[in-house]
């Protein structure tokens, strides 16, 4: 047994010596204590948990960015919708269209001209812009729902394991 005599306090030399012997004895005893083997998949489970948490961080950041974009695109959509509404009124489309209910016979008699007039007065550009804005809102909403679902599943796992 290697004992460093230089660091042993001279007055307590015997106590120090006994302590070292005792420690050696207990060390020998604890060497007999077997290691408990974890399940063979524990390492993979840990790495999976870490990559899941990594994904969670990315998802949370993405949700924050998407929420801002969703709010902006929603505002854009509302604005474009009001523009379409105004365009329908200013182009005279609503007046022409109302003829179907007031003068149906005339509409039938000149249906080709009527159809052409209706198409001409249709605010196509404003409608396209509004549809594009609507699809952007839907797109962001889908991404957001997907990410929320991932966070929700993660919360279920956390509750299951009690963390």
């Amino acid at each position: 047994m290697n004992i460093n005599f230089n660091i042993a306090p001279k007055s307590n030399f015997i106590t120090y010596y006994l302590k070292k012997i005792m420690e050696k004895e207990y060390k020998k005893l604890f060497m007999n204590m077997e290691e408990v083997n974890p399940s063979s998949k524990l390492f993979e489970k840990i790495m999976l948990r870490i990559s899941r948490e990594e994904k969670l961080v990315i998802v949370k950041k993405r949700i924050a960015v998407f929420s801002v974009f969703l709010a902006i695109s929603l505002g854009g959509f509302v604005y474009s919708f009001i523009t379409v509404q105004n365009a329908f009124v200013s182009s005279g489309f609503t007046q022409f269209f109302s003829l179907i209910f007031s003068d149906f016979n005339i509409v039938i008699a000149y249906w080709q001209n009527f159809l052409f007039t209706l198409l001409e007065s249709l605010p196509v550009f404003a409608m396209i812009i509004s549809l594009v804005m609507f699809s952007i809102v839907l797109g962001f909403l889908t991404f957001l729902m997907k990410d929320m679902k991932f966070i929700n599943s993660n919360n279920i796992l956390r509750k299951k394991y009690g963390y």
Partner: protein
Amino acid sequence: MHQNIYYCRINKIYTMDNDSDEKLVEYFLEGEKRALEILVFRYFKMIYNFCYRNVGDINVAEDITQETFVKVWKNLNKFDKNKKFKTWLFQIAKNTCIDYLRKKKSIPFSKFENEDGDNNFVDNFEDISPLPDEIFKKKDLAVFLEKTVSKLPDANKMVIILYYKNDFNFREIAEILNEPIDTIKSRYRRGLISLRKLIGDYEY
């Protein structure tokens, strides 16, 4: 130039297995994800055993081990490079075990923190008698030891396991358990006295 950087990186990945823990942390923070894999692989069994001996349930020990490494991953950027990684890791594992025990079993935190009361450590081991020779001849010594150690009070058991199974010194254990070194020495001594008594009570 670009090729050189590439070969340096490949070389780093292949030689990382032999690097120190602190060097691996540095590599991970530089963006080398494999460094974390090596760290987890190096310690997951040790942490699992530590957790198992503290909570006494293999499934819970697995969950706590997972949680410990997730916490390590989350806080690696806060790791103090002047400290030992192993000590820091066990500190997180200990806290996770305590969190679990507090949540699941409603164990008051004081059970881990203030068990020693006002007793200070007295550097006197004379009241710990030597181990009987018969103990080493026991056939089922591993099982016997496991059972005996599990009977020790939680705080003392933690110190004994960290000292004898995980090769930490008193200063490092004090850091892990966030306690004064004298408290740790006192718990160590109490743990050995209890262990010696439990071994002595057994009829060979």
